């Protein structure tokens, strides 16, 4: 194995070993996505029943409304879990007061980021796949029925989550443990602009402008198009991908700057204090 890959594997192994020894951590990965799916699944079922029973309502429209809701919940979890996966893996090093050892090893910053992304991918799959299973078993909703385009939805939402996570890590490097709360909350603040549960068109004009630059909004527009019309909106996917590249470039530049500044200020040893 090449030394760079081995160093990335070293950090990945650190987190795999941690999860192997800690069932509460493992449980936590799937707990929230499955709980979300249960709550929103029943909500979707209730709404679908009301739509179907309403004058002029149809079973098809009810099913579509329910599917759009469940698809939104599941896919938004992909972004949330991806973002949290990176940020929490980084914070594990802070909590264990281990960052000093990591940063004096030959591990390059980009290798650290690569390992964090690997941990995030594993955490996301461990959280979202059970929720997808629950959606199928309890509500007969099969996300993969959307076709191979689901992979592109996943990829775009993961990229957005990672970009936000790099921004969060940059803030932790700058402000220390005081910025930790952002790891859980920052992406929730973007939910209104991500158009998870409604089309961008329902937003007021100023919010539409903001939604346009949020990659997730294009993914969810694409998801609804696939669900309702059965078409793949390559224009929306292209926009999401392009925006993600810009977001990741900006987040990488911010991370590189804050990492260097942390080395200049001497923040790497005392970051958890």
């Amino acid at each position, binding site marked *: 194995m090449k030394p760079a890959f081995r160093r990335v594997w070293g950090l990945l*192994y*650190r987190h795999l070993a941690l999860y192997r020894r800690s069932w509460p951590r493992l449980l936590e990965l799937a707990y929230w996505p499955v709980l979300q799916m249960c709550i929103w699944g029943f909500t979707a079922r209730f709404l679908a029943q009301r739509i179907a029973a309403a004058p002029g309502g149809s079973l098809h429209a009810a099913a579509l409304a329910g599917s759009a809701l469940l698809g939104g919940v599941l896919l938004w979890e992909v972004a949330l879990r991806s973002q949290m996966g990176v940020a929490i893996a980084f914070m594990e090093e802070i909590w264990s007061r281990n960052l000093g050892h990591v940063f004096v090893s030959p591990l390059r910053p980009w290798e650290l980021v690569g390992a964090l992304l690997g941990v995030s991918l594993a955490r996301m799959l461990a959280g979202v796949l059970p929720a997808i299973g629950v959606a199928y078993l309890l509500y007969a909703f099969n996300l993969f029925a959307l076709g191979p385009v689901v992979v592109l939805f996943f990829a775009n939402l993961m990229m957005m989550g990672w970009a936000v996570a790099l921004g969060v890590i940059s803030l932790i490097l700058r402000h220390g443990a005081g910025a930790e709360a952002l790891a859980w909350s920052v992406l929730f603040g973007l939910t209104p602009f991500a158009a998870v549960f409604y089309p961008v068109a329902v937003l007021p004009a100023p919010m539409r402008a903001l939604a346009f630059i949020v990659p997730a909004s294009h993914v969810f527009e694409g998801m609804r198009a696939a669900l309702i019309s059965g078409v793949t909106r390559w224009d929306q996917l292209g926009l999401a991908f392009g925006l993600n590249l810009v977001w990741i470039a900006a987040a990488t530049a911010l991370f590189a700057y804050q990492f260097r500044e942390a080395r200049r200020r*001497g923040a790497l040893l005392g970051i958890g204090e």
Partner: protein
Amino acid sequence: MNAIDVAGLTKRYGSILAVDGLDFSVPMGATLGLLGGNGAGKTTTIAMLLGLLIPTAGSIRVLGHDMASDRFAALQRMNFSSPYVSLPARLTVAENLRIYGHLYDVPRLEHRIGALAAELDMTELLGRPAGQLSAGQKTRVALAKALINRPEVLLLDEPTASLDPDTGDWVRTWLERYRAESGCTILLASHNMAEVERLCDDVLMLKQGRIVDRGSPTALLGRYGRDDLEEVFLDIARDRRAARAEAAT
């Protein structure tokens, strides 16, 4: 070639000058002690030697590598131990050593872990979580982590802090033997004067970020007319040498 070459090393935090123009070299295989009170600049100097901290001015070369432009090549050949930096507490000792073995690209890693555990008398600790060890056991594990890559330069920040005298002596004896066998260059920051006297070939006395004196322990004892380094340390920390000279005149 020296193992470490430091020239004009300076670190300023705003208006505070933490390290003020240090110049020193450490020959291959030598042990240099950094002595000084709290806030003298020892930890800041070690952090800059490890690339954790960017100097305001000056240069550092470790094993011929410029730490400003080529620090990863140097880091591959050095290591560090400090009681103030922990290992993940939930992971076992073996898992922790495996992580660092991968980070340092150590060949035949399992064999290396087994050999280190035998050398440091900690084979029975390998399966235990790092967080459940006593201070003495943690020190041995920290040493194993610091030696996992057979470092040519080893930086030790207060390696026997918070250890009982017996365990402290065991660590010092072990370090002496290790240096003799491996030819490793050691830079040691410590508040334990007996330790510095026993282990170090040369000592830098730091005060307020500056080198105020340097020399071998024997030379320093002779120069200050003292029987142990603790008295030398107090002379420097409290400016007693100048006061004694003034009183003599």
